[in-house]
C-alpha cells in the first residue's frame, strides 16, 4: 500500500513537473542569452492557455491542430514583446529591463482580463479522458490511478523537449544561440545576427510555455487570467533549482520540483504546497546558487 501511494504521487508529480519544465525552459534560455529575468514569461503561458481555448472552442480545431496554432500565436506575441519592450533596453542597466518585464506582465494580464473576463472559463475537453486503475489494467498494483491526460502531457512534453534539444544542438540557429550565451559581444563581432537569434529564442521559449498552457487547461479543465503569476514564479524556481541558463538543468529542476510538491501534498500539508517551492529555492540559493547543473560564475576585479 505504501508503495502504491508513493507511485501515485510520483505519477502526479511527473505530469506537473512536465508542465513546469516547459515553462522553465523559456526562462532559462532567455536568461542564458540576455542575462535577464523575463518576469512576463508566466503570462505567455496564460496566453497560450487562452489561445488553446480560442483554437479548440471558437475555431473548432481538433487537438492536434490546436497545438501548432498556440505555438504560432504565443510565439509571435513573445517576438512582439521582445521587439518593442525589451530590445530598446538591451545593454541598459539591469534594473530597467526587469521593471519593463514586470510592466509587460501587468499589461498582458490586464489585456486578457479586460477582453476575456476575470472569471475562470471552462476549458473544452479536447481528448476523451480515461482513468485507468493499474490494479485492473495491468494486474499489479492496487489503487494507483493514471489518467490518459497525464500520459499525453508527459509524452508530448518529452517530445517537445526533444525537438528543442535538436534545435539547440544540431541547427545553425541553435549554434548561434549557444554562441550568444557564451559571449554576447564576441558573437556579434563574429557576425551572428543577434536580433534574429534573440527573437527566435523568445519565440521558442514562449511557444513551449503556451503548450504548457494548453496542457494545464486540459488537465484542470479551467483557465483564468491570473493563472500565469504563481506558475511563472514556480517555473522560475525550477529553472534556478536546475541552474539557470542550463537547458537540461531546467528540465531536471522542474521534475524535481513537481515531484517534491506532489509528495508534500500527499504526505503533509497541502496548504504549504506553494511555500515548498520557495523553500527549496532558498535552500538551493544558500548552498549552491548556480543550481544543480549550472556552473559557478567568477567575479573578476
Amino acid at each position, binding site marked *: 500500500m505504501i508503495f502504491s501511494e508513493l507511485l501515485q504521487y510520483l505519477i502526479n508529480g511527473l505530469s506537473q513537473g512536465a508542465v513546469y519544465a516547459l515553462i522553465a525552459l523559456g526562462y532559462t534560455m532567455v536568461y542564458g542569452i540576455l*542575462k535577464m*529575468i523575463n518576469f512576463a514569461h508566466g503570462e505567455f503561458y496564460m496566453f497560450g492557455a487562452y489561445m488553446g481555448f480560442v483554437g479548440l472552442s471558437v475555431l473548432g480545431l481538433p487537438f492536434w491542430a490546436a497545438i501548432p496554432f498556440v505555438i504560432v500565436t504565443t510565439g509571435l506575441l513573445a517576438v512582439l514583446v521582445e521587439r518593442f*519592450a525589451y530590445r*530598446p*533596453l538591451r*545593454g*541598459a*542597466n*539591469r*534594473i*530597467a*529591463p*526587469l*521593471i*519593463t518585464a*514586470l*510592466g*509587460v*506582465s*501587468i*499589461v498582458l*494580464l*490586464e*489585456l486578457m482580463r*479586460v477582453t476575456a473576463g476575470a472569471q475562470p472559463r471552462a476549458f473544452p475537453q479536447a481528448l476523451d479522458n480515461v482513468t485507468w486503475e493499474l490494479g485492473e489494467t495491468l494486474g499489479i498494483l492496487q489503487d494507483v490511478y493514471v489518467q490518459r491526460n497525464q500520459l499525453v502531457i508527459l509524452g508530448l512534453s518529452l517530445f517537445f523537449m526533444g525537438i528543442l534539444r535538436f534545435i539547440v544542438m544540431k541547427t545553425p540557429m541553435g549554434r548561434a544561440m549557444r554562441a550568444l550565451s557564451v559571449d554576447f559581444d564576441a558573437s556579434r563581432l563574429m557576425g551572428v545576427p543577434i536580433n534574429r537569434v534573440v527573437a527566435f529564442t523568445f519565440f521558442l521559449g514562449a511557444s513551449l510555455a503556451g503548450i504548457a498552457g494548453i496542457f494545464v487547461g486540459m488537465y484542470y479543465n479551467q483557465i483564468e487570467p491570473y493563472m500565469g*503569476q504563481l506558475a511563472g*514564479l514556480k517555473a*522560475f*524556481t525550477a529553472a*534556478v533549482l536546475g541552474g539557470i541558463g542550463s537547458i537540461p538543468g531546467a528540465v531536471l529542476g522542474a521534475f524535481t520540483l513537481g515531484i517534491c510538491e506532489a509528495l508534500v501534498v500527499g504526505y503533509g*500539508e497541502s*496548504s*504549504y504546497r*506553494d*511555500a515548498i517551492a*520557495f*523553500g527549496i*529555492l*532558498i535552500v538551493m*540559493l*544558500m548552498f549552491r*546558487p548556480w543550481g544543480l547543473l549550472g556552473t559557478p560564475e567568477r*567575479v573578476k*576585479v
Partner: protein
Amino acid sequence: MIEYFGQIFVLFGINVILASSLNVINGYCGLFSLGHAGFFAVGAYSSAAFTTLIAPEWTAQSPHLALLVSSLIAMGTAGIAGLAVGIPCLRLTGDYLAIATVGFGEIIRIVFLNMDVVGASRGMPGIPRLTTIPWVIVGAAFTLIILNNLIKSSFGRCIKSIREDEIAAQAMGVNVRFYKTFSFVVGSLFAGLAGSLFAHNQEFLHPSNFVFMISVSVLLMIVLGGLGSQKGAVLGAFIVTLLPELLRLNEFVSQIRMLVFGLIMILVMLVFPEGLLGLLKKGSLKNKFFKKAKNEPGFSGAPL
C-alpha cells in the same frame, strides 16, 4: 468626498514610508530586493495582533498610545524578520538576491495564509481604526528625517560605496557584510511601521494584501522617481498612489486602469530610465534630444 481624499492621503503617506525605506536597500545600497511586501505584512499582522488580540481593552482606553506601541512592535518584528532574511540572503548578489527575496516574500505571505491565530485565509477582521491623518504625517516625517540623516552619516557613505563598487569598498576597509545587513534591517524596520499604519487604516487584513505585485509597485515608486533619491521616492509614491485614482474618473478608463499603469511602467523605462528626477538634472533633457551622437556606443567603448 473629504473622506475619500483623506483615504488617498493616508495611502500616500504609507507609500512614502514604503518607498523611502526600500530606497535605502535598493537605491542607496544597491541590493535588489523584491520582497518588501513581506516585511510590510509582518509589521501589519504583528501590530494588528497586538491591538486586537493581546491588548484590546487597553487599546480602547488609550488609542493613540496603543497605535504608538503597536507601531514600535511592528518595527521590531519587521526588523527581526529583516535580520532573519538578510543574514542568509545577503551572501547572494544581483539577480540571485532578487530571486531569494521574492521567495522569502512569498513564504512570509503563505505562512500568514496558514496561521490560524490571525485568521489564516479568512483574513483578520475587527482591527480598530487608529490611523489618523496626523499620525500618518508624523510617521512619514519621522521616517524621512531618520532615513535622510542616516544617509548623510558615515553609514550612508558606506552603503553608497558598496553600491558603486563592492570590491573597492571592501578594499577600503568598509565592513561590507555588516553594512549590507544593517541597511536591509533599517529598510524592513520602516516597512513594518508602514504595515502598522496600513493595518489600523484598513481595519481588515488578508494575505492577498501582500502579494508580489505590492513589492513591484513599491519598486516602481522608487524607480519612477529616480533610484537613490529620497525626493524621487516621495514623488514616485505620489504618482503611484494618485495615478490609479485619477484613472478611475472616466468609466471606461477605470476598467483598464491597471493596463494603463503597466503601459506607463514600460514607457517610463523606455523613455527615461533614470527616473523623473533624472530628467530634471542639469542638461539631461538637452543631452537626450540634441546631443545623442555623444552617447552612441563606440565612442566610450574599451580601447581596441
